[in-house]
């Protein structure tokens, strides 16, 4: 498969995503500079983590105006697979590709730690290799992951099964103690209504090699590859 990883000024997980896709999963990957206009013929686009534009003003707020984002929007409109990780998720929110907005963590502190997630929807191109309700461990590292959406919007998300991951504890309970940032309804990741654009705060690329402490995240990339292979 062919992946594109978009590099914004200030992205810093671009090389990590490329490493996993290229060296662990042996896929074709190109780094696409934010000022490019085209995604070439990529089949899946990843907006990586980092601090695009220093996260100045609001996280993701300035990156969403990069020229490449028009191409990402088109690609998504045509049903292309888009994955936004951490800062990538924040950019997707600011660009309006996903609903809601990010606030600072409830603690007001950056938090970097292993995190358990409950897979809420395993019928997406990115999660079909997980069992429904399965607990996976994927690290988080962010200062603004406190997802906000108004009650009506939230109701919509729930109804459409757009909530893909929730923060959970070891017993699988999406409790407020398990919520690392104050995110509404313990939301860690959501997908758009069409089911092709996923945004998530945790970093699956950081849990894709056993030597780094776990490989639960690898399945997410493998799922996308399998989905694309099947779709042809």
């Amino acid at each position, binding site marked *: 498969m062919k992946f594109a990883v978009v590099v914004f000024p200030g992205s810093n997980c671009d090389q990590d995503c490329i490493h996993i896709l290229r060296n662990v999963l042996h896929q074709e990957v190109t780094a696409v500079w934010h000022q490019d206009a085209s995604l070439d013929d990529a089949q899946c686009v990843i907006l990586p983590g980092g601090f695009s534009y220093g996260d100045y003003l609001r996280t993701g707020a300035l990156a969403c105006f990069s020229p490449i984002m028009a191409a990402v929007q088109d690609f998504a409109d045509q049903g292309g697979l888009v994955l936004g990780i951490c800062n990538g998720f924040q950019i997707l929110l*600011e660009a309006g590709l996903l609903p809601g907005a990010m*606030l600072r963590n409830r603690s007001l502190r950056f938090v970097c730690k292993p995190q358990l997630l409950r897979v809420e929807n395993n019928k997406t191109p990115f999660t079909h290799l997980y069992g429904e309700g399965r607990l996976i461990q994927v690290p988080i590292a962010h200062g603004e992951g406190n997802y*906000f959406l*108004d009650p009506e919007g939230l109701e919509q998300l729930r109804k459409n099964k757009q909530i893909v991951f929730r923060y959970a504890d070891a017993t699988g309970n999406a409790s407020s103690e398990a919520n690392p940032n104050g995110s509404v309804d313990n939301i860690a990741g959501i997908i758009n209504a069409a089911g092709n654009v996923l945004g998530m705060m945790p970093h699956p690329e950081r849990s894709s090699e056993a030597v780094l402490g776990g490989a639960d995240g690898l399945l997410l990339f493998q799922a996308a590859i399998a989905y694309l292979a099947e779709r042809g």
Partner: protein
Amino acid sequence: MWKAEIHVTLKDAVLDPQGKAVRSVLGSLGYSAVEKVRIGKYLEMVLNVDSRAEAERQLDEICHRVLANPVIEQYDYQLVEVPR
């Protein structure tokens, strides 16, 4: 030349963790009279345009597109003419 003073604040329905934290710090320092704290952004911007109307047109666009996220924030601004 016009100088804009822009306020971007969180909508009332949105919890303001920073404001809450400041209030609690103030409380622990003994400022118990402080009852409510909300924290937003304050921007100063100089626009090199000739008319107030043009300044307003651009500012509305800029605030709406860039400076405030309508999902969580609201904005307002004041304009004053400044010498070039």
